[in-house]
């Protein structure tokens, strides 16, 4: 396959937008409820825009820039969506599994899955909302074995239960660590086994 055209200094953008649109159509066709979110600001800022933004916050917070992503509405069907993305859409490799706690006030965390297609040379971002009071989702390890350690990491950092994970122990944190450090409402401990943390 031809190498994708480089349209920005940070890599091809149009290829990824195209991949997101195609995946959106394919997932919807399979009966999965998916929303496609595409940035509505142009890829490149106008001259002086960055300077203006640096002084003052943007007036329109609904205007955004960056990558497009897909939002899966029903988290119970995550594995179905991921298998389809892997088998039918040829995204062979999982690049990253992580989560985002956007705001302490929010009731949901975002589970984020980055996948890469070695044949189409494109990336895709799939998101799923996880309610903070019932933070569980199916483990992607059965579809993408590479999700193993990523899920262990975001599990311990955000308190997400990845159901069906073969080895859901802590990976970076000690086994007896209390709390989920990357949540926005996390309170730093005063001490750990007699070691002062302040």
């Amino acid at each position: 396959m031809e190498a994708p055209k480089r349209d920005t200094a940070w890599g091809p953008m149009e290829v990824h937008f195209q991949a997101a649109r195609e995946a959106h159509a394919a997932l919807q066709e399979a009966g999965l409820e998916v929303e496609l979110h595409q940035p509505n600001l142009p890829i490149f800022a106008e001259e002086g825009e960055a300077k203006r933004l640096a002084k003052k916050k943007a007036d329109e917070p609904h205007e955004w820039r960056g990558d497009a992503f897909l939002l899966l509405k029903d988290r119970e069907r995550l594995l179905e969506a991921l298998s389809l993305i892997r088998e039918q859409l040829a995204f062979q490799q999982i690049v990253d599994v992580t989560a985002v706690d956007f705001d302490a006030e929010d009731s949901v965390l975002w589970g984020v899955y980055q996948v890469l297609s070695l044949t189409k040379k494109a990336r895709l971002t799939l998101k799923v909302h996880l309610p903070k009071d019932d933070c569980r989702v199916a483990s992607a390890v059965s579809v993408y074995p590479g999700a193993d350690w990523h899920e262990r990491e975001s599990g311990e950092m955000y308190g997400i239960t990845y159901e069906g994970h073969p080895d859901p122990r802590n990976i970076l944190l000690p086994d007896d660590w209390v709390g989920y450090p990357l949540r926005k409402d996390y309170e730093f401990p005063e001490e750990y086994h007699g070691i002062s943390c302040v």
Partner: protein
Amino acid sequence: MEEPPQTTPPDQHRLREIELDVRTQDVEINMGPQHPATHGVLRVLLRADGEILVGAESHLGYLHRCAEKIGENVDYIQYMPYTDRYDYLSSMNNNLSYSLAVEKLLGVEVPKRGQYLRTILAELNRIASHLVAVGTYGIDIGAFTPFFYALREREFLLDLFEKICGARLTYSYIRPGGVMNDAPAGWLNKVAEFCDIFDQKWPEYWNLLVQNKIFIERTANVGVMPAQTAIDWGCTGPMLRGSGVDWDLRRDQPYLVYDQLDFKVIVGEGYRGTLGDCFDRNFVRMYEMLESIKMVRQCLAAIEEGEVSHPDVSLTIRPAPGEAYVGIENPRGELGHYVVSDGTKIAKRMRCRAPSFVNLSVVEHTLPGCMLADAAAIIGATDIVIGETDR
């Protein structure tokens, strides 16, 4: 290249038969966290049945510094120095990945000269990193001298980095909006001089280390990873290419000026044994250094006078709301930064997708069935940097 002599793979089944004649007990061996061959504070719990490994388990976290949490509490420029400390052997590439992600949200493109300088530095840094990787790998498997040869050339590179940004290890040179400053007078000539020197010195490494009979015996047919395993487990960089998968982000998702450069993606070919063994990973690293030199030469020929930084980007950065993921080809694989912004000075999420972390996760599955003495060879060939696995 001469026709390589093929060595036969060890007959694992026959070895096991001999072992099963005797009543034995599995032994658990603790490798690390202070073991020279783990390249940092990594602890691997090995389970051995005689001389053959039956299980392995990595314990990480000794160097966890909460970088991602810090990223949600400091502003964009203040976070720069933390990216240096992920993979301290290739800080330029870490800076680059982070800067590109922020620039994607800002929507600004660095002027041409800045892009060429970034490319030159990223490639020089790749050579410096691969020199350490191949050099320390020699130590892991019993060859001490080549490491000092490698440090000799790396010293030249570190001097070059010191001249351009003042630091020898944690550079913070490539930053959102461009680079810290233009190259000092005569610096580009020095880089050209390095290219000439390195071309002469490269055969020394090749002949002294990689073509050495002991090196081949220790690496050929050891730790074989099939291409499908490498893809499934998310391996990137020399680990993936060593298994014969033709994938390089510099060619397949070109950023900076890589689309204008003429280079070859080095893929393992089972030169001395089975495709995907430890030898192939080092083979890829060795030849990638020559490709990097080729790219640097082309950049030197094409670079023109001009601005190095975008005028709109100052020390205060408030990117537009949104999220950006940028993955670049680091010496160890795909280094990605995933930045979520809400339009304020401080990011909402600062995720670093570290190649060493992912490449290490597959080692647990490669080790069982190998000889105990090969554990160091296999972990070493993964070329992990603990600063990056633990972040």
